[in-house]
C-alpha cells in the first residue's frame, strides 16, 4: 500500500506551524527512514498520518484514497503504529501485549478468541520471540520488548507500519537485530516509515530517506543520493565525512571532530595500543 502526503500543514497554535506544506510519496513495499533533529516535527507528522491530530490542512492518501473521512477504527485497519518501548503501567505478559494489537480487527464489544491467539503465535514466531510468550513485558530486554511491539503491529493486519525510533534505548546488538527484522518485513511487502536518529542506519537498511527540519522536507531520495555532509550539517549542525568502504558497497558517517582528535593524540596506532 502506498502512502502519500500532499501539501500537509499542521499547527498546535496559530502562526506556529509545526508542519508546513509537506508533500511526499512512499511507494508500496518501500522502507523509508525519516531523519531530522529533535523538534523537527517527526512525531507530529506521525500523529497527523495516524489521524490522532485530525485538524490538519492538506491531504493524506493511502493507495490514492484520502484518509480524511476515516474513523480511528478504520485507520487502525490500514496503518499500525509502533511506539518506543517504554514500560507500561501494568506488567502484561509478552503474549497479552501482542494480543492487544488484534483489537483493531474486532467488533466493538468482542474480545480476542482462538483465531486471534493463533495470529499472535504466528507473529511472535516470525519475530523469534515466541519462547518469551509468558514472560512479563517489563522483564525482557529492550530489544525483545521492541520486537513484541512490532509483533503487535503485525497482528493488526495492516500493510503500512509507522515506527517511532524503534532502536532508541537499545544496545548495539539489539538495535541491529531489530533493524534486521524490520528489513525483512519491508522485503515481504510492508510499507514502512521509520523515524531514526542514526543516519548510518539509513545506509544499512533504508530504500529511501526523508529529511525533515523545522516542519519542512529538505530532501527525499535514496540514502546514497541524499545523505552527504551538507545535509547532515543542516540537520544536526555537525561536520561529518562520508566514508566509502569496500569499494563503496557500504557508506558510513564519521564526525570530523573525531578525526581531528585522533590526529592530536598521535593517530590510531597509539589509540589501539592504549586500549590493550
Amino acid at each position: 500500500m502506498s502512502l502519500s502526503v500532499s501539501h500537509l500543514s499542521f499547527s498546535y497554535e496559530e502562526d506556529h506551524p509545526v508542519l508546513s506544506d509537506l508533500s511526499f510519496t512512499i511507494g508500496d513495499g518501500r522502507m523509508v527512514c525519516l531523519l531530522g533533529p529533535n523538534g523537527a516535527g517527526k512525531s507530529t507528522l506521525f500523529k497527523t498520518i495516524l489521524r490522532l491530530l485530525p485538524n490538519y490542512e492538506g491531504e493524506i492518501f493511502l493507495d490514492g484514497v484520502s484518509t480524511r473521512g476515516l474513523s480511528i477504527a478504520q485507520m487502525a485497519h490500514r496503518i499500525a503504529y509502533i511506539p518506543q518501548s517504554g514500560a507500561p503501567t501494568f506488567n502484561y505478559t509478552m503474549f497479552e501485549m501482542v494480543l492487544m494489537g488484534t483489537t483493531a480487527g474486532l467488533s466493538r464489544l468482542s474480545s480476542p478468541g482462538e483465531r486471534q491467539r493463533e495470529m499472535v503465535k504466528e507473529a511472535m514466531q516470525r519475530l523469534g520471540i515466541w519462547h518469551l510468550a509468558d514472560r512479563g513485558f517489563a522483564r525482557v530486554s529492550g530489544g525483545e520488548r521492541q520486537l513484541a511491539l512490532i509483533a503487535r503491529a503485525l497482528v493488526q493486519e495492516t500493510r503500512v507500519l509507522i515506527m517511532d525510533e524503534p532502536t532508541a534505548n537499545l544496545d548495539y546488538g539489539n538495535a541491529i537485530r531489530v533493524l534486521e527484522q524490520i528489513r525483512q518485513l519491508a522485503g515481504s511487502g510492508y510499507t514502512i516509515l521509520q523515524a531514526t536518529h542514526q543516519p548510518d542506519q539509513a545506509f544499512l537498511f533504508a530504500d529511501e530517506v526523508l529529511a525533515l527540519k523545522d516542519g519542512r522536507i529538505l530532501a527525499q531520495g535514496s540514502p546514497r543520493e541524499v545523505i552527504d555532509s551538507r545535509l547532515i550539517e543542516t540537520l544536526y549542525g555537525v561536520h561529518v565525512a562520508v566514508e566509502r568502504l569496500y569499494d563503496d558497497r557500504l557508506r558510513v558517517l564519521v564526525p570530523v571532530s573525531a578525526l581531528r582528535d585522533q590526529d592530536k593524540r598521535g593517530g590510531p596506532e597509539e589509540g589501539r595500543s592504549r586500549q590493550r
Partner: protein
Amino acid sequence: MSQRKYDIPIAIFSLALLVLFVVSFLLGRYPIHPMELGGMLLDSFLHLVERFVSVFHLQADLGIEPFWDPQTSAVFFSIRLPRVLLACLVGCCISTAGAAYQGVFQNPMAAPDILGASSGAAFGAALAILLGAASWGITGMAFVFSLVTVLLVMLVSRFARGSRVMTLILAGIMVSSLFSSGTSYIKLVADPNDQLPQITYWLMGSLTEAKLPDVGFACIPMLIGLVPLVLLRWRINILTLGDEEAASMGVDTRLVRTVVILCSTLVTAASVSVSGMIGWVGLVIPHLARRIVGNNYMKLLPLTMILGALFLLGVDDISRSLMAKEIPLGILTSLVGAPFFLYLLTRKEGF
C-alpha cells in the same frame, strides 16, 4: 497454549465464595441450625417453582411443613439474607470499580473514591441525617450526591487544560475536599446527642441496617454498571497503554473511558449509599487479583469480582461474630486491608 491455566483460580475462589455464602447464614448471635437453613432454602425454592408453574395455569401445592421456629425464619429473611447478599454485592462492586479505575487512569494507586464518589455520598448522607430523613432518604441522598460529585468532577476537567487523565484526578481531589469540608460543617452543626453519632456511625461503614428493599434498590444500578464493565474489560487493557497507542489500535479512548468511569461510578455510588464508607477493599482486592492471574482484565475483572465478594463477606462475618458489640465494617476492612496491602507491597515481585 498460554493463558488457559488461569481459569483454575477463578474456579477455586468461586467455590470458596459459594461455601462461605452458605456458612455465613449460620453465623451470628441468633443461631440457625444447618437443617433449618436447608429447610427454609428448599421451601422458598419450592414456592418460587410454585409461582412459576402458576404462570402456565397449573395448580401445584409445593413447600415443606415448617419444622423451624417462625422467629428463625424472620431472622433469616429480614436480617441475615439481605446482609449476606449486600456484603457480596458491595464487595464485588467496589472491587470491580477499583480495578476499572486503575485501568482507565493508568494508575495502580487508584481506588473507587478517586473521583470523589465516597466524599459525595458522605456529604449526601450527612445532609439527609441533618434534615432528619428516614433510612431510605439517607441512602437515596448518598446515591444522588455521589453521582453529582463525579459528574461535577468530569465537567470541571472538561474545561481544564492538560492531559485528560491528570486533570480528572486533580479535579477529583479538589471536589472531594470541597465535599469533605461540607461534611465536616454538617457534623459541626448537627445535634451532638442524636444526629452526630448517627453521621459518625454511617461514615464508618456498616451493613447492620441492610434490609431486603436496600438490596433491591442497590441491585439495579449495580447491574446497569457491571454489565458494560464486563463487556468492555478487554478494552480497559488497551486504555492502560495511554491514549495515543490505544487510538492507533482503533479504540475510541474517550468513549470507552467515559463509559468505564460512568459505570464504575454508578456501582460505587450504589455500594457506598447502602453501606457507608468501606475503605481499602477497592484498592487491595484488585491488587490481590493481579498477583493471582496477572494484569489482563479478561481474567482480572472476573476474579476481582469474586474476591471482592468473598473478602467483604468474610470481613462482615467477622464483624458480626467476633465481639458482643459489632465492629463497623469500615474499621475492619482498613484493619485487615492495610497490613495485607503492605504484605503485597513487600513481597519479592514488584508490581
